[in-house]
């Protein structure tokens, strides 16, 4: 197969490329230039994809003896991933840009360009497994629990899955991957992992949002409407957030307060006790299924955070005004589910589908009386 190996300059994608070469594929390495932000061209940034990273990827390609190019996807990245990030926060929702990057960049822009240029598949250093099932390729969790990335990959859908390769699928630990890198003389074996959001170089997401969306001072109120503090922009707050509220005085009952609602129309942040965060019903839109969409309630587990626990639930496919959607009945209460988050449906280690949270509530309380996590998906 002709395989395009996406190489970020990190150890995971370098080893993935190495394994693709050893599997006998005809491999070409590509580093995606995604940033138009000069700050990120400094070395040592926390995010990804500085010049140093491009150089590391080039050296890895040299060691593997494969051609190497840098492709500029920065315009598409800005128009999809960054734009979505900003518009979701503006609307009071909580986006996951890594999901959007996989959706729009790695497994669309990059994959489609690769296909047009004659490649059969894109290989990445994601921790996930593809298994050949009776109905085609299946996406499964990686045995590496701590690093499993099936959650951010679930958005890709079956057609793209069929054109993807995850060579790191069998590794249970990062140490094994680093050992593989060392064995092959890849100098990135000791390189630290990048973390946080790749396009916020200094890790200050709130600062980034303020730069791009401006400061919009407003009030923090409790569930009675009593003003208890101020904020500089409702968009910077997430449902379930406890830290960084900057409230002058404690709640009357002395218990911690959490963000239970973000109303960007009135630019108000509502805080309340943790019980108000509790939900057991989730609606999600833009559903993508890797199996036939379940028309009846089906037993599954669901995961709502990138590194959260999957909880037992039941799911069924529905359609909302905007297309395929899903309804989820949780087997236990969860707290702090924000619209915009990605929800992934599993059966065992297998990914069945994914959706974007459009609402969450408690089944035993009338919706109108609820506060929290009901920012409507416009």
């Amino acid at each position, binding site marked *: 197969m002709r395989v395009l190996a996406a190489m970020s300059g990190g150890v995971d994608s370098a080893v993935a490329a190495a394994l693709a070469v050893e599997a006998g594929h005809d491999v*070409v390495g590509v*580093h995606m*230039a995604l*940033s*138009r932000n*000069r700050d990120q*061209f400094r070395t040592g940034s926390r995010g990804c994809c500085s*010049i140093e990273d*491009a150089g590391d990827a080039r050296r890895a390609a040299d060691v593997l003896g494969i*051609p190497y*190019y*840098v*492709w*500029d*996807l*920065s*315009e*598409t990245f800005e*128009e*999809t991933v960054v734009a979505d990030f900003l518009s979701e926060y503006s609307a009071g929702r909580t986006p996951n840009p890594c999901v959007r990057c996989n959706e*729009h960049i790695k497994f*669309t*822009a990059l994959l*489609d*360009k690769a*296909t*047009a*240029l*004659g490649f059969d598949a894109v290989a990445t250093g994601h921790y996930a497994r593809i298994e050949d099932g009776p109905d085609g390729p299946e996406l499964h969790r990686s045995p590496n629990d701590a690093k499993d990335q099936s959650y951010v990959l679930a958005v890709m859908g079956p057609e793209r899955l069929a054109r993807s390769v995850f060579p790191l699928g069998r590794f249970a630990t990062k140490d094994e991957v680093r050992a593989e890198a060392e064995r092959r003389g890849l100098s990135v074996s000791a390189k630290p992992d990048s973390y946080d959001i790749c396009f916020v170089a200094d890790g200050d997401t709130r600062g980034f949002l303020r730069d791009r969306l401006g400061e919009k001072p407003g009030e923090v109120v409790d569930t009675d409407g009593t003003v208890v503090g101020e904020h500089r922009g409702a968009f910077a707050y997430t449902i379930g957030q406890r830290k960084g509220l900057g409230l002058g005085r404690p709640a009357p009952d002395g218990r911690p307060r959490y963000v239970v609602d973000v109303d960007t129309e009135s630019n108000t942040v509502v805080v309340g006790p943790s019980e108000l965060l509790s939900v057991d019903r989730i609606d999600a839109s833009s559903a993508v299924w890797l199996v036939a969409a379940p028309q009846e309630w089906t037993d599954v587990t669901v995961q709502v955070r990138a590194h959260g626990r999957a909880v037992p639930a039941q799911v069924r496919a529905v359609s909302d005004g905007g297309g395929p959607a899903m309804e989820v009945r949780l087997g236990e209460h969860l707290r702090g589910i924000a619209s915009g988050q990605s929800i992934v449906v599993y059966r065992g280690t297998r990914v069945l589908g994914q959706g974007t949270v459009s609402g969450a509530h408690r089944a035993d309380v009338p919706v109108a009386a609820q506060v929290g996590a009901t920012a409507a998906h416009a």
Partner: protein
Amino acid sequence: MTVTTSPDPGAYLDHAATTPMSPAALEAFVSAAGRTGNASSLHSAGRAARRAVEESREAAAAALGARPSEVIFTAGGTESDNLAVKGIFWGRRSQDSRRRRVLVSAVEHHAVLDPAFWLAGHAGAEITLLPVDAEGRLDLDALRAELAAHADEIALVSVMWANNEVGTVQPVRDVVRLAHQHGVPVHTDAIQAVGQVEVDFAASGVDAMTVTGHKIGGPVGVGALLARRDLALEAVSHGGGQERGVRSGTLDVPAIRAFSVALTDAVGRREEHAARLAALRDTLVDGVRRVAPQAVLRGPDPASSTPDGVPDRLPANAHFTFPGAEGDSLLYLLDSAGVQASTGSACQAGVPQPSHVLLATGVEEADARGALRFSLGATSTAQDVEALLDALPGVVERARAAGLVSARQGGAA
């Protein structure tokens, strides 16, 4: 000892980026590298090294129509351009503090533009970009107007002898005539012109001229700035005071030897070399037009020349844009077919930018993305051109398909 050098196998069509060292230059380099001596030392070993340098200087001067005392050896074209732009700016300004303006053509290489803009950011310079026409030729009326309006404030004018991307040969003598009427010195980057068109320092009248080794069969890492003795020129790099005190540093004897051999050969064989490459280039251009009819030739008409017979376009240069295709797709597809060409765009931190040269000639940004420059050299053959023409139709088709994909996603048009 016979040494042969050749570019990588496959069709190498990027001689404007760099070209193989000639066997004679390589031999001169290796034999000089086997000897030891600092040309600044006063004892025998030093004097022997010094002699090698001075003989090289005389040969270089003779090849370029200059006096030996006008030749300053440097570590290459970029250093020479920096020395010219900064050194002349500082020299002229210390003579008269009103002289803050620097006039450069809009199509200069970054090695001229970037020092100029650095001076603007750090030394109070004011940069004027002189416009060019659709073929990349300097607008002389714009220069005339600037000179008339601001002569007393202008530190220097810098206009390249020939453009590295689209091959435009500039009206250097006219630039000199206009600038000298107002007492303003002229620098020209002649890197691409040497060995292809006639370059004579004295006859041109320019005050300073950049040349480099590795575009003409010499080594990378050596070049020269030719500068009139009476030109106000401050040093950029200070130290032992070598090269008239304007360019300190131990002289690289092997590189200088090889450079002078390459220069002498390049200038000596220029007419036949230029004729051979022009014919090969014309075959390439006709071929591209035939196999990729949507391709647009950028730069001057290869067949046109000035009344006194100087070609309007470098004989070894061809440049096309391919609508609907992106440079990185074209580059990858050609490279994997064994054909090596340049997208001609500068790389800013690994992210290719559309060429400022194309944009200055009025090419739309979307069209400027799908650019390819093909440049020939001493080792180029008809087989290289055939390899390109064989690969190109498939390459363009796939690149346009990939470009459509990007356009649908709302990214690059």
